[in-house]
């Protein structure tokens, strides 16, 4: 079975994300009135395949698989689904999966683009542990931001239905909007803490010669994202944006992150030597 590589494994996981996304549309059409067991198990199966893919890649490289855009992207998706599988153990929060699966499908399809996974060059001569810590915590942070955006999406859906007196607001099994708002806040805070650790770890990584740290596009972008999330959390603490405004901002910030992450990575001499 040498032909069955980690990419094949990941492809199967993406197929399951796709099936989950299709089932999520069905759940949405049903007004989220049906319990979400099927979707949970689909994502669990996808997660298992996804984990196998990452392990295969990691063992083949002998280090944490976060070395190129494909690996980084799959890692982000992995953290989103891992976080969901934990949170989704609570029945009321299981519908996060219905909102997360389209995002996972989109990330998965993007990750499978061949250009994102070039062959690996010679390994840089520095400690793998710090590099793994930097990459893992940063990507975990993106996963938390992603799931926070998903929870914010659920909040906006439920809030809209309640505002406009839709029957599915009461019929659906979605959690109360106050709980969704709290979960969004906690996920963004968790993501921010992880992001801070990741950035701090990255500061101490050895750099190639003639590669400036503060001028690197990825570093500038990361600091910018860090400031954005800090500002959102601070404003939230001061109760300045409305609940709806906060939810929209979280979704907007994550969309910006998703759309610009790969570009800045490619432009960065530190990340793409």
């Amino acid at each position, binding site marked *: 079975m040498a032909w069955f590589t980690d990419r094949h494994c990941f492809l199967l996981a993406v197929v399951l994300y796709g099936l989950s996304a299709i089932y999520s549309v069905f759940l949405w059409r049903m007004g989220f009135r049906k319990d979400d067991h099927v979707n949970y198990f689909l994502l669990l199966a996808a997660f298992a395949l996804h984990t196998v893919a990452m392990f295969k890649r990691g063992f083949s490289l002998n280090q944490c698989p976060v070395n190129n855009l494909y690996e980084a992207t799959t890692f982000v998706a992995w953290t989103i689904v891992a976080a969901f599988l934990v949170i989704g153990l609570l029945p009321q929060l299981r519908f996060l999966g219905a909102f997360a699966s389209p995002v996972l499908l989109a990330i998965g399809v993007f990750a499978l683009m061949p250009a994102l996974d070039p062959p690996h060059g010679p390994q840089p001569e520095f400690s793998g542990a710090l590099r793994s810590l930097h990459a893992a915590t940063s990507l975990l942070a993106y996963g938390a931001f992603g799931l926070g955006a998903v929870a914010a999406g659920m909040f906006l859906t*439920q809030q809209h239905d309640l*505002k406009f007196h839709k029957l599915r607001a009461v019929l659906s099994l979605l959690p109360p909007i106050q709980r969704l708002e709290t979960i969004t806040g906690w996920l963004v805070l968790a993501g921010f803490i992880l992001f801070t650790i990741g950035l701090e770890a990255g500061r101490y990584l050895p750099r190639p010669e003639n590669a400036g740290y503060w001028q690197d596009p990825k570093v500038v972008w990361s600091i910018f994202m860090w400031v954005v999330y800090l500002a959102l959390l601070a404003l939230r603490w001061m*109760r300045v944006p409305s609940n709806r405004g906060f939810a929209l901002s979280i979704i907007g910030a994550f969309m910006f992150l998703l759309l610009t992450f790969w570009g800045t990575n490619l432009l960065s001499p530190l990340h793409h030597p």
Partner: protein
Amino acid sequence: MNLVVIGLSHHSSPVELRERFAFAVAKIPDALKSLRESGVASEAVILSTCNRVEIYAATALEPASAFAELKRFLVRRSGVAGGCDSVLDCGSPLPLSSAVPAAKAPEGWRSSEPRGSSQVHGGNAEFSGDEVYSLAEPQSLHHLFKVACGLDSMVLGETEILGQLKEAYALAHRHGHTGARLNKAFQRAFNVAKHIRTETNIQRGSVSVASVAVELAEKIFSSLQDREVMVIGAGDTSEKTARALLSRGAHSIIVANRSYDRAVTLAKELGGRAVPFGDWIAEFQKIDVVISSTAAPHHILDRTKLEPLMKLRRHRPLLLVDIAVPRDVDPEVNFLENVYLYNIDDLQAIADDYLRLRKEEIARCEAIIAEKVKALLHKHENRRWKMEDGTSTSPSSILDSASSL
């Protein structure tokens, strides 16, 4: 042994009549004992609620005889005149102005229907006998299962009846008035009710305005514990809504009414406090749910008043339930952030939608019940064909044996 049922319900008789046939809980064991000693039934359960009085009995008599005897028993116990089969002796004939005083409704029994909705003569509802229905197998089993599932209730799909049926069965069982037949039938009825509750939407949602308001609150707030509720205007529906919120854990109730005395009375009943009508706005900052039903001809709360109050609330959501007609709350208020305004039509529309969903489930529930009744009868039939030596057989295998000889 046939399982039969006889009784009256809200479908067949007005409350003025039902209350006279009702059994007090304390008197049921004696009634069951008396019923069994008379030889009519070897097993019996009496179900007596606001909306029905029924006797479920396992009897060796032919159904027609059993019905007559059970009806006589009911009539005798109630003291209501008339309604007996003209062929059968109902005991001493009792004219309408009977020397035997008519039975009063048992203590603590509360009618759920408004008075005056039935045909009443001289203060006593006429009993013609047609109000009593009687069913033998398989219809009796079908009826029992329907009652357990709330399909025969005044509010379709209500769940209270299952608890009442369980209590009635437990009482009879505790006093030794049930046997294999009724035990099996009632246990199966409870299982069917559970099955239907999980597999269908017949018990889903709320069909009263008050319950819909509580459901909405539960969709907005993580928990109703520690929620402050304000009742403006002390009407019947707003009282019911406040009680429903309290039963789900709402923290406290503040009542404001034009009549301060009425506000105090209601607040006392609800375990809350009253505020003068002019001061209700001052309490707004800490309120989470407002139930409004004043008789004011104009809006008592509009966007201009509410907007500055919302700023003080630091983005905490506010649920406004406006039950008044004309409306107390300006509809424009719904456009404010974190405000969720529902008027009486919105709540009623949700309640009607729930009722429609329940009605759509009736056919499915009936199909499930029919299947379960068939399975129970089949099982009972197989047991009947057990031979005396303990081997079991069935009608078809007897025929096979005969043809092979």
